[in-house]
C-alpha cells in the first residue's frame, strides 16, 4: 500500500514519462529496500516527512538510471571499438624468412586484415595472399606462400609466363632470394 502511494506521489512530482515508467510500485519497493539507509527507512513517517525522503529516493533513482544508461553506452562503445580494432588493417614488416634458406633483399610490409571470420595477409605488390585464424598465422602462411611461389615461378621459363605471373616473379625477385645453402648468403636468382 505504501509502495502504491509512493509511486503515485512520485509520479505526480516528476512528470518525466520515462521516470514514470521506471517507477512501478514493484521498482519503488526495490528502490526503497536498496536505495535508502536503514536510518532513513526508520525515519520515514508517512506522509509528514515523506516528501524529503521521496526527493532523496528520486534523486538516487535518477542517479541509478543514469549510471545504468552510461554503463550500457560504455558496453556498446567497447564492442564497437573491438570490432573496429579487428577490422582495421595492420602493416606487418617482413624482415626474415629464417629458418628457411631465403633472404630478404629489401624489407617489405604485408597488410593483414580481418575478413569473413579469418585474417588475410597480403603482399599486394606480388598479388599474393594467405589466410589464417590469427594475424600471426596469416603472416606465417603468407611467408610460406611467398617462398613457394618464388620457387615455383623460378622453375618456369620466362617466355612461358603470362603478364600476371611474370610481374609476380619480377616483384618477388626484387624482394627475396634463395641462398645456395642454408648457411651462406650466396644468392640464386
Amino acid at each position, binding site marked *: 500500500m505504501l509502495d502504491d502511494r509512493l509511486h503515485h506521489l512520485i509520479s505526480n512530482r516528476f512528470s518525466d514519462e520515462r521516470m514514470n515508467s521506471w517507477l512501478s510500485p514493484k521498482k519503488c519497493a526495490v528502490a526503497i529496500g536498496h536505495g535508502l539507509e536503514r536510518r532513513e527507512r526508520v525515519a520515514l513517517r508517512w506522509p509528514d516527512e515523506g516528501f524529503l525522503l521521496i526527493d532523496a529516493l528520486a534523486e538516487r533513482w535518477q542517479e541509478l538510471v543514469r549510471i545504468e544508461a552510461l554503463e550500457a553506452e560504455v558496453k556498446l562503445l567497447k564492442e564497437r571499438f573491438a570490432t573496429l580494432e579487428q577490422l582495421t588493417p595492420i602493416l606487418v614488416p617482413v624482415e626474415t624468412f629464417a629458418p628457411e634458406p631465403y633472404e630478404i633483399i629489401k624489407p617489405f610490409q604485408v597488410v593483414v586484415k580481418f575478413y569473413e571470420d579469418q585474417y588475410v595477409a597480403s603482399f599486394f605488390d606480388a598479388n599474393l595472399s594467405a*589466410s589464417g585464424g590469427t594475424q600471426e598465422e596469416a603472416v606465417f602462411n603468407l611467408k*610460406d606462400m611467398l617462398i613457394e611461389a618464388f620457387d615455383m615461378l623460378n622453375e*618456369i621459363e620466362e617466355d612461358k609466363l603470362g*603478364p600476371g605471373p611474370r610481374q609476380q616473379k619480377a616483384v618477388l625477385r626484387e624482394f627475396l632470394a634463395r641462398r645456395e645453402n642454408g648457411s651462406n648468403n650466396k644468392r640464386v636468382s
Partner: protein
Amino acid sequence: MAVITKELAEKIARKLKATFISKKEHDFAQIYHEGKLIAFFGIRRGSQKDEGHDFIPSQIFVSTRQAKLLGQCPLLREDWIQILKAKGKI
C-alpha cells in the same frame, strides 16, 4: 564464414582446368592458356575443407562474386579467359 572455402577453391581449380604442383605447404593450381601460365593460386595443404581461401579471387583477377560463380558453375573457363583478356592479363 568464408566465401571461398578450400572445397570451392578446388572446384574453381578444376573448372579452370588447372594443373597442380605440390610444394611443402601449398598445392599450387596453375592455369595455362596457349602454353603460358596466366594465373596461379595456392591451396594450403592439410587445411579443413571449409577453411577460408578468400584471397583467391584477386589472384585469378576476378571479383569474389565471379570466383564463386566459377566454382558453382554458371561462369565457364571461356568466360574467365574473356575477363582476363579484357583486363590485359593475357
